[in-house]
């Protein structure tokens, strides 16, 4: 069944069709949320928020690029999730507990290699205005115009932020000694 057919069926209340749509897109959503800074333990919750929202507005969806729409919703859900005070508190508690082990024990499940974990942490340390364009460009292969659309910023801002993000990330990597000069 094509995605168009799945959407059409889901719009008519076909639960199985919507579940199939979730299965197709959940990896993109979770990956993006993780790259935006959501802890692996919270990925399922954020992802659930995204797909509940998506379901609510599915009947409005007619055409065009489903994925760009998903990125916007995921970004909003990611931001909203940590804005909620209780969850923020819970997150801090969780993080405190986890810091006793290693900074990124949960990330180890996802990122098998030490180099990758270093780079992932360095990206997380970037200000979000640099982190989001960088993630969308390098890991989701969005074009500048698409990034501008998802983040609701101008094309020139995308270009400038990407350039700065790259500089900052390189500097951070050099500083923590995870790469050799050159």
């Amino acid at each position, binding site marked *: *069944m*094509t*995605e*168009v*057919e799945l*959407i059409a069926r889901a719009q008519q209340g076909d*639960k199985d069709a*919507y*579940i199939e749509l*979730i299965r*197709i897109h*959940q990896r993109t959503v*979770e*990956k993006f949320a*993780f790259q935006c800074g959501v802890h*692996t333990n919270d*990925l*399922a919750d954020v*992802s*659930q928020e995204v797909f*509940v*929202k998506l*379901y*609510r*507005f599915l*009947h*409005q*969806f*007619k*055409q*065009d*690029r*489903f994925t*760009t*729409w998903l990125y*916007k*919703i995921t970004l909003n859900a990611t931001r909203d999730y940590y804005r909620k005070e209780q969850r923020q508190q819970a997150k801090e508690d969780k993080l405190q507990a986890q810091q006793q082990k290693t900074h990124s024990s949960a990330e180890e499940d*996802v*990122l*098998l*290699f030490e*180099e*990758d974990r270093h*780079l992932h942490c360095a990206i997380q340390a970037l200000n979000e205005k640099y982190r989001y364009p960088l993630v969308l460009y*390098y*890991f989701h*292969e969005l*074009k500048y*115009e*698409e990034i501008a*659309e998802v983040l609701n910023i*101008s094309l020139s801002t995308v270009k400038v932020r990407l350039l700065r993000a*790259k500089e900052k*990330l*390189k500097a951070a*990597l*050099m500083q923590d000694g995870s*790469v050799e*000069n*050159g």
Partner: protein
Amino acid sequence: MDDKQFDQRMALLKKSYERMEPKLDPDTVFKQIEEEDTSKELSFENINKVHQRPSRWQKSVVWFVSIASVLLVGLLGTSYMIRQPETYNSNDKQISQENDDNRIETYEQWVERITKKYKRVKEDISRELKVSVEELNTFSYIQNADSLLAFYTSYERPIKEDWELQIMEKEILDGLMTPRRALETIKGYGPLSFNESYGIFSLYKQPLNDIEVYFNSLLEPYEQFFKKKIDRSQYPSDLKAIIETASKQYMELQMDTDGSYYFKANPIDGEFAFEPIKYMHPDIFGYFEFLQKGFLLREEDLRYTREETAESLKIMERSLLFDINTANATYKELKAVFENTWLALMKGTTNYQVYTDKGIVNKEYLNFLQKVANGKYGEVMTKNAATILNELHQYNNSATLVGLSKQDISTAILQIRKDTAVEEFNIVDIDDAEIAQIKKIYDQYLKSDPEPFINQLSPLNMVSLYLYAISIGDESLQEKVILSNVEIESDFLNKVKNLSIISQMAQYNGNYPMVAVRLDEEHQKEYGKQLLFRLSQNEDGFYRIIGIMD
């Protein structure tokens, strides 16, 4: 750290992210939906009644409506459009000019101006279509535009950035279109790129259905009149006026097979064709063809003759082969029509059967098949048609025809595409860094419990690992990634002594995952541009390789 090193590090991390396991159980989404039970609040009718400042939940609804609208009209337009359609009059231009000069319009001033401008454009459209504004307000695309305007003009936090206001204004006005206004944006430009053409097509398509439905409803009172088959010059003046107005939107009066009349837009080669449309990219016309012809099947049979249908499919094929935005719903719809219709043409329909009553293959069918095999109706079906033709000549039946499926047609499209689709494919260049990455995965495999490790591999990584296992002679791993009881035969596999003969790998995320392996130029001469690996789930639900199409 130079740029190349940086890009390599990012590429390696990207590959690691690809290995993430899904966390969400989709069933829990429905549990939450049922608990919230807010379906009543979220009805679209409610949104359209909102003119005062929306409540919190209404705002979020409108936000998503606006996203949907933007996606419909403006999203693709951001990268596709070449300019703002001229939807405003000289007064508006003057106001805009003043804005350009001053650049200090406040949000409140902008709201006031855009609201007035929107109202004026709407009145212009109402005059253009000769419908009352009240009637116009019932069109769904106008309702979407209204929702977007309502949302963008009711921010609690005023927008300060001038560029934000410009983008919002463009999105709002792009929502107010007629087919004529959309196509007139071509005027004054030379040949357009595919993306620019697609942007204009999206604007054209957006209002078309509403407007066709509306004008067709105006024909209902004349049903009996049409049956008398009176010459068009004798039509009453009010009907002539309707036809005249419709013609401005490229719509011509046509007669269906059941004798009923209807309007259908045909700006390409119809009675009221729009001459500058020739500047659009030639590969865009598959989308226009589908808009004009609609679905080519009706009740398991063809709506048009076999030859007309095949000609339409040939036009659609060009868009399917050229457009790289394959995740676009419009692309997927066109592809589904293409596959379903070709399947019906090949397998036969009630009026165009493969066999005669005596069980002999129909001569007309064989002639048609020969033309398909010769490439008269495009490239995609030539190979399948030639095989089927050969089998029918030899045995009077064809196993290929019996087994032909939509998946086969989809695969044929993939094999012929000139470029890799950007969204359904996960593309990886096989360079030294990638080969090192594959070796790392292999090392990890050696340290891990084999089956669980292989179960969590993406199709692309699984095929990479399989090819790597061949190159180093690890037969045990080769067996583990292939579905049990399946034997894979390919001359190519004997040549894999080193992964450097591969230039690129790409994962296709369709219903059945496939991995395309592109070869370097030297090996392309011998084995073709690419090989497609097919995967299927084993009895435990994990993917394994089941075959190669070379």
